[in-house]
């Protein structure tokens, strides 16, 4: 740069000098408009990674309850997730009505629409494994969380009760999940 001319040096000196001027209104406005635009332009790309419309529109799952004896459990898929449907025995219902659960207390009647039928999402609220059915509820194979027959967490690392999905009875022996 030894031979750089006077004018160029001047121009460069000026470009340093303008630093103070830089905060002026026009530059701030243009910068703001530009940054807003770039941020907005990111949105379609981010949004494209969300579930697609066909996945979002995935149908509700129908479950036929006829033929499920008291004490039986079924696992059905709803939006790809396992959902446990349990036909509880009168003893289980009575036992659950007595208890408030453990770490995340909730009365049993707030977790069911019909006390005979328990419907919960079969995904452990700890780190997402699928718990195994036991006599008294569920035991998660991954880190040992124990749930009762209302899907409430009793002990183990899981922080919350098993989630109750949205569902309704379309007929006395038919529920629609979703």
């Amino acid at each position, binding site marked *: 740069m030894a031979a750089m001319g006077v004018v160029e040096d001047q*121009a460069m000196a000026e470009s340093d000098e303008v630093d103070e001027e830089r905060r002026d209104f*026009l*530059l701030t406005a*243009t910068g703001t*408009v530009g940054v807003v*635009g770039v941020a907005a332009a990111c949105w379609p790309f981010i949004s494209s990674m969300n579930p697609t419309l066909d996945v979002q529109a995935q149908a509700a799952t129908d479950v036929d309850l006829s033929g499920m004896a008291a004490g039986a459990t079924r696992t059905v898929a709803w939006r790809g997730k396992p959902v446990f449907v349990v036909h509880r025995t009168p003893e289980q219902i009575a036992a659950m009505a007595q208890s408030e659960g453990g770490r995340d207390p909730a009365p049993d009647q707030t977790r069911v629409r019909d006390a005979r039928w328990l419907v919960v999402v079969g995904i452990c609220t700890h780190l997402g494994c699928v718990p195994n059915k036991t006599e008294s509820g569920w035991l998660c194979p991954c880190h040992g969380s124990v749930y009762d027959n209302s899907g409430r967490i009793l002990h183990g690392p899981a922080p919350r009760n098993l989630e109750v999905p949205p569902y309704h009875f379309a007929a006395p022996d038919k529920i629609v999940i979703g």
Partner: protein
Amino acid sequence: MKLRALICVLLCAASTAWAENALKDVDLDSSPAALRRGAVTVTSRCLSCHSVKYLHYRDLLKLDFSREEVMSMGNLESALLALTPAEVSEQAYGRVPPDLSLLAKAREGGPRYIYTLLTGFYQDQTGEINNHLYPGIRMPDILGWSGADSTQRAALAIQANEAAAFLMWAADPRADERKSLGYYTIAYLALLTGLLYLVKRKVWARLK
């Protein structure tokens, strides 16, 4: 720049010239009501042989059909599939009738092609039904155009128009969303570019 423009102009002229002169001029009626009537025509007539497989019945909800209306046409989650199995059509017509989802984009002239085809049926001297646009077509005269008198044809022309408009929508269901986003984007860019022009002028003014 000039070169680009020239090439583009030449290309458009070339690619549209030969294919489109045989097509009838038609003002597509793309009003919501017309699209709904077009949807009914297509699902009740065309779907007996053709599929529109990239549309699902739930997509018709976007045309402001009520849920019940759509559910009476088909299961919300299923695609608009042909009622006749492909093998049966193939036996009857020699080839599987093409899927209609993209037809309005896949033919030069798009919806005009569809309209011209549907209203191009006639009865030749031997009494056979043929088509002006597609001589030797195997598809039957689905609207009954060849046997209709002029009053009937006026009504059929509207039906063909609406079916073509619906198929255009089916080929490009996001067109409205795209255009409205386009207006905002261009307005924004015009603002930004205007500001950038001022900045550029201001910065360069230091050189004087």
